């Protein structure tokens, strides 16, 4: 530990002044504080995400009992979750029973886009909430007919920060990053990548036009998510989709 490089919260790197708001003085460990006479101290140790974690465990058990594999798709808005899911459904529906839950702040547009014959779809409108949580997924799943469904695709709210903290009870977390974003997205938003089972680099058909360095992006994904399986796809041209679909089939 002694040799570990310590982050410097406020520092000038090259010519850029960095103000790291994560380490202001008032977040330093608080003194234990004297207990006033007659006061009552209650030690609790209650995890504040406990309610979500418990509900996520219930979801996981429910899915397992029904032999459903649930996948939680997360990314920034516009990275291509809905388009990739649409192509995935086109390829799998009729062969593997699928269902979809899709979360957005407002509108049912994505649910409409993902409607396919024989595929139950429900839109979860969070009304401003920046992520899906396990109880929203439980309610959404109750609204669907899941008899015989083997793959449940959950499209999270487009947000590369908050959904990382909320377990939904999924079997796999799939993080998307598109070649219209920067190659360094994985380094800027590490939790969403470090918790991913799979990272999919999307829109690779426009990578060259965007001057997007795919090798550098892969290296950054590998650094932020060394555990993850990486796919590169274009939902538009179909490039790379076969490997992704094989991965899904192998989950069953």
């Amino acid at each position, binding site marked *: *530990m002694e*040799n*570990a*490089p*310590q*982050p410097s919260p406020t520092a000038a790197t090259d010519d850029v002044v960095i103000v*790291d*708001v*994560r*380490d*202001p003085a*008032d*977040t*330093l*460990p*608080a003194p234990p*504080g004297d*207990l*006033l006479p*007659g*006061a*009552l*101290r*209650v*030690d*609790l*140790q*209650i*995890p*504040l*995400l406990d*309610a979500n974690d418990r509900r996520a465990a219930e979801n996981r058990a429910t899915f397992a009992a029904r032999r459903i594999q649930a996948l939680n798709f997360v990314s920034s808005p516009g990275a291509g979750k809905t388009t990739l899911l649409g192509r995935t459904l086109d390829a799998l529906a009729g062969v593997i029973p699928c269902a979809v839950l899709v979360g957005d702040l407002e509108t049912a547009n994505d649910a409409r886009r993902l409607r396919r014959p024989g595929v139950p779809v429900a839109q979860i409108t969070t009304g401003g*909430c*920046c*992520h899906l949580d396990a109880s929203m997924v439980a309610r959404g799943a109750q609204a669907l007919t899941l008899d015989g469904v083997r793959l449940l695709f959950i499209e999270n709210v487009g*947000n590369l*920060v*908050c959904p*990382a*903290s909320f377990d939904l009870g999924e079997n796999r977390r799939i993080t998307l990053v598109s070649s219209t974003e920067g190659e360094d997205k994985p*380094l800027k938003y*590490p*939790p969403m*990548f*470090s*918790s991913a089972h799979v990272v999919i680099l999307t829109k690779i058909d426009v990578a060259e036009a965007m001057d997007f360095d795919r090798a550098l992006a892969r290296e950054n994904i*590998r*650094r*932020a998510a*060394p*555990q993850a399986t990486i796919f590169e796809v274009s939902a538009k041209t179909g490039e790379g989709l076969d490997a992704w679909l094989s991965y899904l089939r192998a989950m069953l």
Partner: protein
Amino acid sequence: MHELGIAQAALQHVLAQAERAGAARVGRIVLRIGELSGVDPDSLRFAFEAILPTSAAADAQLEIEAITAVARCRSCNLEYSPGPTALFECPHCRALGADILHGRELDLVRIDFT
């Protein structure tokens, strides 16, 4: 971004404990927040300041124990502080990937009733 929800969850626990203890006044609320919890202490404090005044814990002081992240390298077992990012590269052997030992905490630790 979701600190308000976290603050509300904490306050619910606090008020339930106050009722159970038959306490008149909540003097101090102590939370523990890990660097990797995804919760920003300043935002959480701001959220508390928004919801406390209209609650039965209006006078409560909020204390935050910040927990430094500690990771253990999966290759050489070195325990190191990755800093507040979730990028894990061992400073000794440069291997990527680590088990997080500390830093994900997001707990209501203690309440002082007066």
